[in-house]
C-alpha cells in the first residue's frame, strides 16, 4: 500500500516538472519568434538514423557531363558511402533510384560499395532503373520496385574508338560478364533468364534487350518486392532492429 502511494506522489511531481519544462520551452520559443521572426524547423530528435542516397539521372563516368544534365557523381557518392559506414549514429541506408544508366565502371563501383556496406540497406526503384541501375538496385540487402517503374536490361554498349579485331568482342564479352555475375550473385534471378532478357529481340525499338516493368521484375527474381517509400522504411527499420538484436545476443555470449 505504501509503495502505491509513493508511486502516485512520484508521478505527480514529475508531471509538474513536465509542465514547468513546457513553460520554459514555450517562453524560449516566443523569444526566438521575437528575435528571428521564425521558429526552428521541427527536428526529428538528433540525427536521423536512416540516411538516404539518391541515384538520379545519368551516372557520370570519367568525363564530366554538361551541366544541364542531371547526374550522379560517383566521386561524391563513394566518400558519402564511406562516411555512412563510419558514422555510428547512422543505422540504415535507403537508396532511391531514378536513373537512365550511364558509365559501367562508375555504376559497378557504387554497386560494389553498397553491397559491401555492413549496415542494412534497402533500395527503391522509382520511375526507372535502367542499364547500370540494375546492379545498383540489386546490390542492397533488400530491393523494392514501384509498380509503375521499369528497368531496361540490355547488353553493354561501347562508345568511342573501336578497334576491329576479335579481341574487341572478347573484351566486350568480359565486360558483360562482370555485370551478369554481379546481378545474378546479388539477386534471385537465374543467369539463363537474365541472359535471355538481355539478348531478346523485338522488345525495344532499334535495340536488343527487354523493358521489365515492376511486377515482372519481382516475378523474374530480379527485385525482392513491389512497393514504395512506406514499405522501404518499414523494412529498413525491421532490419535495423534485427541487426541490433543480433549484436546484443553476441555481446551476451
Amino acid at each position, binding site marked *: 500500500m505504501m509503495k502505491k502511494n509513493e508511486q502516485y506522489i512520484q508521478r505527480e511531481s514529475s508531471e509538474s516538472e513536465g509542465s514547468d519544462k513546457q513553460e520554459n520551452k514555450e517562453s524560449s520559443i516566443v523569444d526566438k519568434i521575437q528575435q528571428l521572426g521564425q521558429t526552428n*524547423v521541427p*527536428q526529428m530528435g538528433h540525427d*536521423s538514423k536512416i540516411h538516404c542516397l539518391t541515384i538520379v539521372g545519368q551516372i557520370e563516368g570519367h568525363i564530366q557531363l554538361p*551541366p544541364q544534365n542531371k547526374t550522379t557523381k560517383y566521386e561524391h557518392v563513394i566518400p558519402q558511402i564511406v562516411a555512412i559506414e563510419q558514422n555510428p549514429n547512422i543505422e540504415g541506408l535507403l537508396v532511391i533510384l531514378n536513373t537512365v544508366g550511364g558509365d559501367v565502371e562508375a555504376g559497378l563501383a557504387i554497386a560494389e560499395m553498397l553491397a559491401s556496406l555492413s549496415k542494412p540497406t534497402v533500395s527503391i526503384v522509382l520511375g526507372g532503373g535502367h542499364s547500370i541501375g540494375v546492379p545498383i538496385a540489386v546490390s542492397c540487402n533488400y530491393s523494392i520496385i514501384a509498380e509503375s517503374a521499369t528497368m531496361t536490361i540490355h547488353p553493354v554498349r561501347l562508345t568511342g574508338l573501336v578497334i576491329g579485331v576479335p579481341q574487341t568482342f572478347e573484351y566486350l564479352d568480359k565486360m558483360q560478364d562482370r555485370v551478369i555475375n554481379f546481378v545474378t550473385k546479388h539477386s534471385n534471378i537465374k543467369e539463363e533468364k537474365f541472359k535471355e532478357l538481355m539478348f531478346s529481340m523485338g522488345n525495344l525499338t532499334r535495340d536488343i534487350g527487354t523493358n521489365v516493368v515492376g511486377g515482372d521484375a519481382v516475378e523474374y527474381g530480379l527485385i525482392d518486392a513491389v512497393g514504395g517509400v512506406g514499405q522501404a522504411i518499414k523494412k529498413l527499420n525491421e532490419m535495423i532492429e534485427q541487426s541490433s538484436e543480433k549484436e546484443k545476443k553476441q555481446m551476451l555470449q
Partner: protein
Amino acid sequence: MILYTMMPNEFIFPTAESVYEKQSIVTYNGVELLVQQTENSQYEIIRILSSDPSHYLDQQYCPGQKLSGDFSRFYQ
C-alpha cells in the same frame, strides 16, 4: 535529326567551358551543395548532395536559395 554514330552526344556538340565553370560543389554549414553563379556574382543553390534527409527539409538549403556569408570550396 537522328545521328547514326558511336560517338556520344557530348563529343559531337560539345558544351563551352564557360558553362562548366559556372557550377561548383561547395560545403556550406557542413552541407554539400551544388551551386551556380548568378549574374550579380551570387551563388544560387541548384541541388543538395547530402545523404541526411533532414537537410532537405531545411528552408535555407532549398534549391533556388542564394548563399550568403562564408563557405569553403570543397571541390571545383
